[in-house]
């Protein structure tokens, strides 16, 4: 075999080799390491089989963190989708001015580029009783006569962490939905209008089909993001009061970096991976089906 032929034969391997090695180092190795870790006692190195996986069934905080995480995902993603879409429809139909729309774009991008930690710190100050702006405003408007302890009771703490997520990510839904609405052919809209279609029918039968796949994509992104919500929660409530806002990600952090129980943390991470895989497979199937239709 000539040198040129040898090089030609080796070229594909040389090209594919580095990314495969990189993938192995960054994905496969940590995954394998995690499996080994989850089957051992991290402190002693002793093999414990599925003991760490069984521990979750006797772990009240793990179970309550699943409940808190699901509540958070459903409320955050649900409100962001409805509010973002509603706002996009309103601007699309009622605000024709290019200048106003440009200003709105700018305003909507600001929350998204704010680091979640900074958003958490600011929100913490805003929600503080006594001198927090929210209580001051409510008192000023005569809506309350004593301060609401936003971050110190379970329902209001959940509301507070949700509000930061919604403030930050509702604009993302708005921007995607608004861009999608621009792609709806105006002749079809005009034809529907002349046939007597009202606002709701226009949306349901003309605009929504154009937006459907985009909204599903947004849903996938937002569910992924809310599943691993961490930064602003840690700053705002630290998972409290009690375990009220201790989401799976916060609990996993606590087990791994406070308890240093890395084996148990590895086992929990596999449960999270399994749950996330099921959710995303379902969403992906839905997305593919809708795209084909």
């Amino acid at each position, binding site marked *: 075999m000539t040198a040129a032929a040898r090089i030609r034969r080796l070229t594909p391997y040389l090209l594919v080799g580095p990314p495969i090695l990189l993938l192995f180092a960054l994905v496969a190795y940590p995954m394998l390491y995690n499996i080994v870790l989850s089957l051992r006692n991290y402190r002693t190195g002793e093999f414990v089989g599925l003991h760490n996986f069984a521990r979750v069934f006797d772990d009240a905080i793990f179970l309550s963190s699943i409940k808190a995480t699901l509540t958070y995902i459903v409320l955050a993603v649900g409100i962001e989708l409805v509010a973002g879409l509603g706002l996009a429809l309103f601007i699309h139909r009622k605000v024709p001015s290019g200048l106003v729309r440009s200003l709105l774009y700018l305003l909507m991008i600001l929350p998204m580029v704010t680091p979640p930690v900074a958003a958490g710190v600011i929100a913490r100050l805003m929600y503080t009783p*006594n001198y927090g702006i929210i209580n001051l405003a409510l008192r000023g408007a005569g809506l309350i006569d004593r301060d609401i302890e936003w*971050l*110190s009771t379970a329902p209001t703490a959940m509301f507070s962490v949700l509000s930061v997520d919604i403030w930050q990510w509702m604009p993302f839904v708005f921007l995607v939905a608004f861009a999608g609405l621009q792609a709806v052919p105006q002749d079809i809209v005009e034809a529907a209008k002349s046939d007597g279609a009202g606002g709701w029918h226009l949306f349901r039968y003309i605009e929504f089909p154009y937006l459907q796949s985009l909204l599903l994509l947004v849903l996938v992104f937002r569910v992924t993001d809310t599943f691993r919500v961490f930064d602003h929660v840690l700053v705002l409530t630290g998972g409290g009061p*009690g375990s009220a806002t201790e989401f799976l990600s916060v609990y996993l952090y606590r087990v791994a970096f406070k308890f*240093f129980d890395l084996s148990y943390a590895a086992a929990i991470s596999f449960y999270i991976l399994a749950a996330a895989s099921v959710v995303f497979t379902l969403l992906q199937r839905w997305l593919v089906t809708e795209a084909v239709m």
Partner: protein
Amino acid sequence: MRRVFLAGVVVMALLLSGPSLAAQGLPPKPVRLTMAVVAGGETKGLKAILPMWEKEMGVKVELVEFPYPTLYEKLVTAFQANAATYDLLIADDPWMPKFGAEGWLTPLDTEFGYKRDPDIFPVVYDLGTWPPPRGPVPPTEKGKARHLYAITLVGNVEFFMYRKDLVSAPRTWNDVIANAKKVHDPNKPLYGFVIRGAKGNPVISEFTPVLLSFGARIFDDNWKVILNSKEAVAALRFFTKDLKQYAPPGVANYDAAERAREVATGRAAQGFIWPAEITDIVENPSVSKVVGKMGYALAPAGSGGKRGPLIGNWLLAVPKASKNKRWAYEFILWATSAKVQKPYALGGGIPFRRSILTDSELNTKFAFFTAMAASLAAPAEWRPRTQEWFAVEAILGTHVNAALAGIETPENAIAKAAAEIEKHMREAGYYK
């Protein structure tokens, strides 16, 4: 001729490097000592004395600053890799069990022959020693040789503050309640007592002195969990009902910043305090309305007369992997010496020596030094010396916080915390 010239250069270099150091048999001066430190007020005094060290010794000390949680992670990563990244470090005292058990630090006694100084409170040496010289020893550490690995630089200890223009110095918790009742008026607003009640470390730092003063403990001398006791329930009930009724709304999410702000703005009359919060906020005329109005005292006693001031020193230590151990040790000796601790204190540092804390000149400027000395001499209580402390703190901190927020009753919170701590300690191999 050339040899004579070179010999002359060597002699000159030795002379310039200082005859005393040459006599001590120190290795050649390193270009610099790299020191990992926590970012924040704790290093204010250190920064003030560094130019003195550099001028005196001719060795630069480079500070690498990290926020509190990051510092721990960076140190552990460097230790696990056995990397000579840092020559010196400053560590929070609850980290000692982990660092000591893993053997990551250089013993200062056997390696350098450190001699104890009677001017330093015994509790300081106890903190830097591993395995712990008193109290229960973790099962994996029994039988290990005991060494001194670290010496305090920041003499942090928790004590009590009160508005001396409004109330008298409380000696017991009953006095605290009486004081609170006297001044509490939410309409002003002036609150009788402010609680740092956020989940985890904040609320545990606040609750531990109460728990101990009521005669309760988390572990016995064999690490058996004895938290679920009537004393502990009484302490938590007192904390979440009797004290909380005089606290501002929302304290279940208050951390140190919120507490100091309440006091500095004249809205709270009593509470616990750590020294750095005093120098940074409470007695800082640029942000505080109560400068000169605060009194400082030892943590109040429970009905049995017991007090539980909590210690939280920052310790200087030399990593085992350091390439400049001897010079790092020289720095520790120098920085903790009585000669340097005075300018250190005047520069905003929190000192720890008896002679400095009782110095009359310094006490005029820093009124809380007497309370600090009394707290360190009490002696101050430490967090149980186990690598599992962070887990214990997180578990107890969740339930105490839940009780403070009214989500759990004191009885439930204590029972749940005790059961979860026991489960954790079992997993960690503390029980057969």
